[in-house]
């Protein structure tokens, strides 16, 4: 069955991130000047506005900063998934990432839980980084 949910519209700026996901590796931009990790990808470091950004693999671990259990879907494509969990994950390296918590028990999700990335190959071209609780 065709995948009907929204897919990222990959551009040259975001390609390294999505290509990393495709090979099941989480990569972030890292600033050679101030050391900050940057997500989402951009032209200039979010902290110091340097353009000396390069891509680096990161731990894929973090904690849940906040979340919501969605009982109404974000459009018809997500209807079959309710209730599902959307969360903000604070990565070990600093940035926050919006993603899903993969779980059979949405009500068990808590702020502060330790999570690790897992990769969902949703189409031939696109893999989405999602997270599972490990703590």
């Amino acid at each position, binding site marked *: 069955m065709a995948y009907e949910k929204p897919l*990222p519209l990959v*551009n040259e700026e975001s390609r390294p991130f999505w290509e990393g996901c495709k090979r099941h590796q989480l990569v972030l931009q890292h600033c050679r000047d101030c050391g900050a990790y940057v997500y989402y990808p951009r032209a200039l470091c979010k902290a110091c506005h340097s353009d000396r950004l390069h891509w680096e693999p990161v731990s894929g671990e973090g904690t849940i900063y*906040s979340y919501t259990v969605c009982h*109404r879907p974000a*459009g*018809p494509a997500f209807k079959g998934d309710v209730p599902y969990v959307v969360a903000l994950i604070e990565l070990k390296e600093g940035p926050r990432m919006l993603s*899903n918590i993969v779980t059979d028990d949405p009500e068990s999700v808590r702020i502060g839980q330790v999570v690790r990335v897992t990769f969902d190959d949703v189409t031939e071209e*696109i893999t989405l980084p999602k997270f599972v609780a490990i703590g």
Partner: protein
Amino acid sequence: MANNGREPVIVGVADAPLQDGMVPDGQNPLQIQAHAARRALAEAGLRFEDVDGLLTAGTWGIPGPGNLMALTVGEYLGIRPVFMDGTQIGGSSFEAHVAHASLALQAGYCEVALITYGSTQRSQRARSLAGRGESLTLQYESPFGLPTPVGAYAMAAQRHMHEFGTTSEQLAEIAVATRKWAALNPAATLRDPLTLANVLASPMIASPLHLLDCCLVTDGGGAVVMTTAERARDLKSRPIHVRGYGETLTHATIASMPDLTLTGAERSGRIAMEMAGVTHGEIDVVEIYDSFTITVLLTLEALGFCARGEGGAFVSGQRTAPGGDFPLNTNGGGLSYAHPGMYGLFVLIEAVRQLRGESGERQVPDAGIALAHGTGGVLSSTCTCILSRD
């Protein structure tokens, strides 16, 4: 603010009448704006020919004529302004328009500024939780199914509960108090009494927000007319003074919000209140964009009406209801009066009516100073205006 006769004042307001949350006769957003503009100008005894500043925002006609919104509205209304502002920062756009119009009026860049808004999202069933396209910055959000905007506000509420012990009952207090104000406003969409239990028993949309924590989905529109204090002396309506304003943004997508329990109101409110030279205790009536109950609670804290984390206690015991000691969202708010998608224009309209003393049953006695506050996007932009009767 220099006292040279060019101090900005609001001399006309109008909101579109609704039937069951919808505009009559299948009106489109341009018709809504034309009717509202005519009524707002008529309050002051002004004509369209007098308008030389046009400020507008909305979500209609995109892609299409809405891409060049101020041009389309100007052409449709048959005016040729010398000052145009299509600032679109979400629901707080109209507070920003008041700020920008004030600067233009004071600088002598225009004489009569018209702010307009129109929406038919209810009658066209245009409201969707599906959110926005997947390009550019949204490619990192849309694939994960965050219902927009409610999911982002829900995560802020969840975080506030985690950090400060805020409860769903405390959020429900806001919905119940706001409904009591709506019961006093014949123009409000929902006027039946509401209890805390009703709110808590309503379906969960995005935890911890229930259906009755969420604003309505209606049509609507309106207009605000501004000019200088000097020009207002010859006009029919009682001018309401714009004493201060401030605007800011903290982020656009919720993952980039620096702190989910602190909105930009902390900054925009401080700028506006310092400009106006008013303190919290001097403000008689407060109109705050209530897209969701949590929006109100976060805004009260960020504006400094209570300490951070104390918003839940602050709104408890129906403090913000009619007869309480903190009159808030006296028209019934986006929760019960109307919410056409960008509600910010209506906090301004209600603040003006309260300061003119024409709010009927819901009139706050001797209201002299009002705060009107807009929030746009997903707690992304905030803009605060301080208005006064004298």
